[in-house]
């Protein structure tokens, strides 16, 4: 039987540092993808993922058992991503580097009827990149990774009904962005 995250955390806290590797393997892909969506750079995404896991390891004794390890990890990751984005924005000005948030790619002008499934997926990916971090991650966690409303409520520190409302709004915003572009 697969060991639960919480029992692995206990093991690590008792001194078995190596056990932490199981948690890394379990979640690094999801965290890496979160960071990739923020940075759009494989190198930065890897660095940010590394930072988050190291920070998580350092803070492990603050982990409260009443919430799931994943939701705690994801919250830490989102905070880290947010800090990084803020810092990037500041660096743009202070070090005269180009803005990191590039405008999204121009979409093809062909009628949507002719657009293949793959192309539609590309458009959705691009539109997702233009959504704010919270909205984007809410949609990804719910509809890509199939996390429950309860888990989302934990991660985003909202009530389940607020999560549902925000999901609805985020979907509508995504629809609007896609609809707006296809009418352009």
């Amino acid at each position, binding site marked *: 039987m697969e060991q639960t995250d919480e029992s692995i955390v206990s093991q690590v806290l008792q001194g078995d*540092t*190596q056990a*932490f*590797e199981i948690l*890394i*393997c379990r979640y*690094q*892909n999801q965290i*890496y*993808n979160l960071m*990739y969506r923020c940075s759009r*750079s*494989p*190198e*930065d*995404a*890897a660095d940010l*993922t*590394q930072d988050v*896991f*190291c920070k998580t*390891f*350092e*803070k492990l*004794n603050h982990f409260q058992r009443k919430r799931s390890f994943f939701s705690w990890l994801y919250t830490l990751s989102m905070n880290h991503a947010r800090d990084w984005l803020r*810092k990037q924005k*500041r660096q*743009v*000005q*202070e070090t*005269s*580097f*180009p*803005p990191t948030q*590039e*405008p999204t*790619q*121009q979409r093809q002008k062909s009628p*949507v009827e002719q*657009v293949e499934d*793959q192309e*539609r*997926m*590309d458009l*959705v*990916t691009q539109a*997702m990149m233009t959504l704010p971090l919270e909205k984007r991650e809410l*949609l*990804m966690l719910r*509809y*890509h990774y*199939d996390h429950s409303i309860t888990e989302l409520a934990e991660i985003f520190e909202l009530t389940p009904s607020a999560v549902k409302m925000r999901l609805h709004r985020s*979907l509508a915003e*995504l*629809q*609007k962005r*896609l*609809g707006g572009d*296809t*009418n352009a």
Partner: protein
Amino acid sequence: MPEQIDQHYTTDKLKELLHKLPEEKEPPYLTHRIMRQIEEKPSSLLRQITRLFTTPRTFTLHPIRLAAGVTALGLAFWMGLTLNSQNASFLQGNDPRQKLSVVEAGADIQEIFQQGRHLLVAGQREEALPYLQEAGRLVPENPEYAYYEGLAYQATDNLELERASYQRGLAHASDALPLLLNLGHNFLESGELDAALTQYEAVLTLNPQESAALYNKGLIYREKGQRNEEREAWKQYLTHHRSGKWAGRAVSHLNNLGDFSYRSYQLGNRRIVFSHQALLGESNSPDDRDREIRTLALLLLENPNLDLNIVTFQEKDSESAKSQAQELKNLLLAATGKKVQSRIRLSWFGEAETVTANTNPYHLTKGILIFANKEMGTTEEKQI
């Protein structure tokens, strides 16, 4: 006109597409890298205890902060008495007493400015702003003060005041490059593309190699849909800047436009941008080719474990492809003093090179591919 929802993006379809969105694969070394870092660090508690005994405890008294604290206390008491009548003006931030709360009356202007700058660099944006505002108010004609005041406004998300600070600075120093550049960024972030472009052009008049101005020109033309200008802008950027992630992005944008005059190659641990035209000897100046050859030569000399594979393509002309490959090898040997003879392998094909950019395939009549030995996977190569 009401916005329409495209029928392909109904809620259900969108959920389905989100479910199927492709994922990036994390690098294979990541787990190992994280674990190595964790194992190298002592535990958090141990580290804290160690720090307690090894770090000297210091207590620093900042005259400005002390004055600020005392003034703020007195002010808070006085404000409590008169808050109702004065509230509106104080909240608007134009009451000079607000400045008194952080800046000692009669304090040295340079000290005030430095304090603000240090706070800004330390990431204490809100705290930095009043100092930099005060420095700017006391000496409005100082472009450096205007610049940092603008930065503080930018850091606190006030684009309008940020712009006003830079414009004030430029009124007194019209060729201050950092002010021109950041004003360009400000316009760009506000979506005022033409104004941003004007600023970047002014920057490039002063410094034709300024990387942010060159790069952002590409972005602006891209956003405006001016493909030819965009193409030229990326090329201009790459003429001067070949390393780092911005160079990688510029190449990617350029290639997505179907232009492969610059290409990015993974050589060992490094991704290097080369001028495709220059490598093939098609550039107007022979110096351009020398520059590419020097870079390759340096890579070979710096890394004795690196073996290079050079593959050339020439549609329907295998002989030309062969002589092209051989010529490149000769140039590399000349540049390295023939120390790397056995580390350069050549292949050539009498056909077009097929490359993909933005999921579109392109056929290049003349092509060149360079890769390090580890990445070699083909069995079709012809060895000289």
